[in-house]
C-alpha cells in the first residue's frame, strides 16, 4: 500500500480537493503551507483535482503513497465532498481534520440538486473519517461542535489563520471612485459572501427594497461574491430587477485585496444575513476596517462578532431595514460598535492563529498530542501508524 521514500524527513502534508487562489480554504491552505515550511517542516499540498492557477504548487493525492515517510502527518482541509476522504480513512498515517464547515445540503436542494447530493455525501464521508482522526481543528466553537457531532474524538478551536492584520490598505483609485459615487447618494450597504443559498443575499435585497421605500430612498447595496451556485446567482439578479433595484444593487466579484478593502472602507454598514456561517471572515474584515455590522445571529456569527455588531433574530425585511436605519442615524452608537469591533479583533487572537495551528500540528507530529498534548485530551498517537482508538 505504501511506498516509503527513503532519505526524506517526515513532514506535515496538506490535502485539499482543489487548491484555489482567492478562495478562503485555498488561501488558508497556502498560508499554512508557508508557515510550516518556514518552521522547517516538510510540507506538500496534495489535491484531488488540479487548478490551472496552482497546479505548480500541488501534487495529485494518488501519488502520495510513493512520497510517504514514516512519521508523516496528513492534514485534510474539509469543506466539500472528495474522494480523498475515504482514501484518507484507509491511510496508516495520523490524520488531522482542519474543518471549514460543510454547508448543509437542504440549503442547496431547491437550487442545485448535484451540489445538495454532494454535500450529503460529504457529511456521510466525514462521519466515516472523523472517528479515525487524531485531532479535529475547527475555526470556531460552532465548527468544533460539528466535528464532535461527526465523531471526532479530540478537537480544538483555532480561528482562521489567513486574515491580514493590520488590514490591507484600500486601493486609492478604487476608493476615490467609490467615494465619488457615494457622494451622489447613499447610504451604501455592503454584503460579502459567495452567491450561495445559505448566504441569504436575497434578504439583504428585500431589506434594501423596504429601506428605499421608507427611510432611505437613495440606499444602495454592493454584494461581493462569486457565483458559487449559478441558479441562485441568476435569481438574485432577477429578483433585484423585479423589485426595480437594478441600479441600486451592485454585484461584483474577483476583487483585488485592495479593491475589496476599498469596499469596506467606503461602505456605511456590513449587512450579513447568512443562515450558516462557520466563522464569518467578512465580519472580521469589517471590524478591521472600522465598518459597523448588522448580522443575523446564526452559526458562528455571534461567537465571531461578540458585542461589536447588531445581531438580529428577526431578519424580516422591515427588521433589517429598521436596524440599519437606526444604526446609521446614531453616530454615537456607530462609534461604539466600531470601537467594540477593534477590541473584539484583539480578543479573537487572530494574530496567533497561524502559529497556534503550526504548533498544534507539530505536537501531533511529535506524538505529544493526547493526554499530554496541547488540548490535554485525546488519544495517544503512534507516529506513522493508526491512532489507537
Amino acid at each position, binding site marked *: 500500500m505504501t511506498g516509503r521514500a527513503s532519505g526524506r524527513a517526515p513532514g506535515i502534508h496538506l490535502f485539499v480537493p482543489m487548491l484555489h487562489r482567492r478562495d478562503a480554504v485555498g488561501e488558508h491552505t497556502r498560508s499554512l503551507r508557508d508557515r510550516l515550511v518556514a518552521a522547517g517542516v516538510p510540507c506538500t499540498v496534495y489535491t484531488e483535482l488540479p487548478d490551472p492557477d496552482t497546479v505548480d504548487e500541488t501534487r495529485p493525492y494518488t501519488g502520495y503513497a510513493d512520497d510517504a515517510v514514516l512519521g508523516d502527518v496528513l492534514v485534510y482541509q474539509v469543506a466539500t465532498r472528495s474522494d480523498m476522504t475515504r482514501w484518507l480513512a484507509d491511510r496508516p498515517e495520523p490524520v488531522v481534520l482542519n474543518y471549514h464547515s460543510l454547508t448543509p445540503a437542504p440549503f442547496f*436542494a*431547491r*437550487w442545485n*440538486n*448535484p451540489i445538495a447530493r454532494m454535500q450529503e455525501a460529504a457529511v456521510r464521508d466525514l462521519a466515516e473519517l472523523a472517528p479515525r482522526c487524531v485531532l479535529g481543528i475547527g475555526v470556531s466553537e460552532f465548527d468544533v461542535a460539528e466535528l464532535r457531532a461527526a465523531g471526532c474524538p479530540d478537537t480544538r478551536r483555532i480561528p482562521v489563520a489567513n486574515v491580514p492584520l493590520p488590514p490591507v490598505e484600500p486601493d486609492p483609485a478604487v476608493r476615490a471612485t467609490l467615494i465619488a459615487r457615494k457622494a451622489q447618494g447613499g447610504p451604501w450597504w455592503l454584503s460579502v459572501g459567495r452567491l450561495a443559498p445559505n448566504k441569504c443575499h*436575497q*434578504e439583504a*435585497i*428585500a431589506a434594501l*427594497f*423596504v429601506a428605499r*421605500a*421608507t*427611510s432611505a430612498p437613495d440606499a444602495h447595496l454592493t454584494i461581493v461574491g462569486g457565483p458559487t451556485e449559478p*441558479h*441562485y446567482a441568476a*435569481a438574485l439578479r*432577477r*429578483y433585484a*430587477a*423585479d*423589485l*426595480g433595484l437594478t441600479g441600486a444593487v451592485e454585484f461584483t466579484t474577483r476583487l483585488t485585496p485592495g479593491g475589496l478593502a476599498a469596499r469596506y472602507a467606503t461602505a456605511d454598514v456590513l449587512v450579513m444575513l447568512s443562515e450558516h456561517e462557520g466563522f464569518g471572515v467578512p465580519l472580521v474584515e469589517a471590524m478591521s476596517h472600522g465598518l459597523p455590522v448588522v448580522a443575523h*445571529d446564526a452559526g458562528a456569527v455571534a461567537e465571531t462578532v461578540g*458585542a461589536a*455588531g*447588531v*445581531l*438580529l*433574530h*428577526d*431578519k*424580516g*425585511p*422591515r*427588521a*433589517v*431595514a*429598521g*436596524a440599519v*436605519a*437606526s444604526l446609521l442615524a446614531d453616530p454615537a452608537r456607530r462609534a461604539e460598535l466600531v470601537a467594540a469591533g477593534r477590541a473584539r479583533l484583539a480578543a479573537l487572537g487572530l494574530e496567533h492563529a497561524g502559529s497556534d495551528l503550526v504548533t498544534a500540528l507539530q505536537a501531533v507530529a511529535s506524538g505529544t498530542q493526547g493526554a499530554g498534548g496541547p488540548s490535554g485530551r485525546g488519544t495517544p498517537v503512534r507516529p506513522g501508524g493508526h491512532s489507537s482508538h
Partner: protein
Amino acid sequence: MTASAGATGPDGPRDAADATDPGDPTVDGAAPLPDDERELLDAFERLAPAGSLQWGFDDAMRRLSPSGDQGTWVEPWRGLPDDLWERGRGAKAAERMLGDVVAVLAQELTEYSQRIVDDVRRTVPIEGAVFDAIRYLAARVDRLEAAADPLGMRPADLALPVADATEWSTALTAWLAGADHPVVVGELGAAGVVGAVADSGADVDGVDPLGRLVWALLEEAPGRPGQVRATVGDVTEHLDRLPPACRSAVVLSGCPDRAALAGKVQLVTSAHRVLVPGGTLVLLVHDQEAWDAALEPTVRDLLAGRPFHPDTWALVLGHLGLTDPVVRRAERGSVHAVVARSAR
C-alpha cells in the same frame, strides 16, 4: 448586542416592546412575518428551479447515471446542447421552429438512451427514470416557444404603454358583482382595475412581475382589511399554481398585449382553468393603433407580442371554449374590454 425587530417600517417606528424575545422558541425567536414581507421573500423563493419542468427533467436524467457504488457506469447526461435554439431556428420560418426544436431534443434523447442501452444491459430502475424524463420532456415542449428568450430580457422590463382602464371601472364592478370566490387581477399597472374589483365586494388576488407595483398595492390596498392580496410573479405561472375552478373571475391587462401568440393562448387557457363554472374572464386590451403609436422603436423591435384586435380575442376565447365572448370598444380611452364566461 441583540436588537430584534426594532424596525422602522412604513407604519413608522415600532415600539421596542415589539422586539422579539431571543428566548422565544417560535421560529428562531422571530414572530411570523406580515403578509407583505412574507410575499416579498416568497417572490424570491419562486425563482428557484426546484419543481420546474427543467429541474424535473434534469433530475430524471441524472437518475439515469447511477453512482459507481452500484457497480454500474453510465455516461452522465450532459444537458441540452448549447446550440439547441440555433439548430431549432435554422428553419427560419417561425411556424417550423417548434417542430425543429422538438426534433433536436428527440434526437438527443434517442442517442443518449441508445448509449445507455449499449452501456448497461441489465434491468435497473433506469427504466422508470427514462419514462420520467420523457414525461418531463413532453410536458415542457409546449412551453419552449414561449420560454425562448435569447437576450434574457423580459417583456415586463420594457417600457410599454400603461393601460388606463378607468373607463371600465363601473362596468367591472357590475360584471363581477356577486362573486363568491376571489378574483385574480393579472398585472396591476392598469389604473382603476383593483379599486373596481374591490368595489364589487370580491377578494382580490393580485399578481404582477414588478415588485414595486405589488408593494404599492399592499401599502395602499383599497377595500376592507384583508380584501386585497398580491403576489410578485408571472401571471401565467401564478394561475398555474392555483387549483382548478377556484376563482370567480380573472381580469387581465398588460400581459395579454405583450405576449406572443403561444404566450397569449397559454395565459387565457390558464385563466380559463381556474374559473368556476359561469366565471368571468375580462381582458383589458390596448387598441392596436394607439399601442403602435406609443411604442419606442427599440421596444417595438424587441417585443415579441402585439395586442390582438379585440375581435381576434373574441374569436380566440370562443375557440378555447369560453362562452358568450363580447367586445366592448373604448369610447374615451385606448383600452378595449373583452368579456367571456366559462361554461356552466
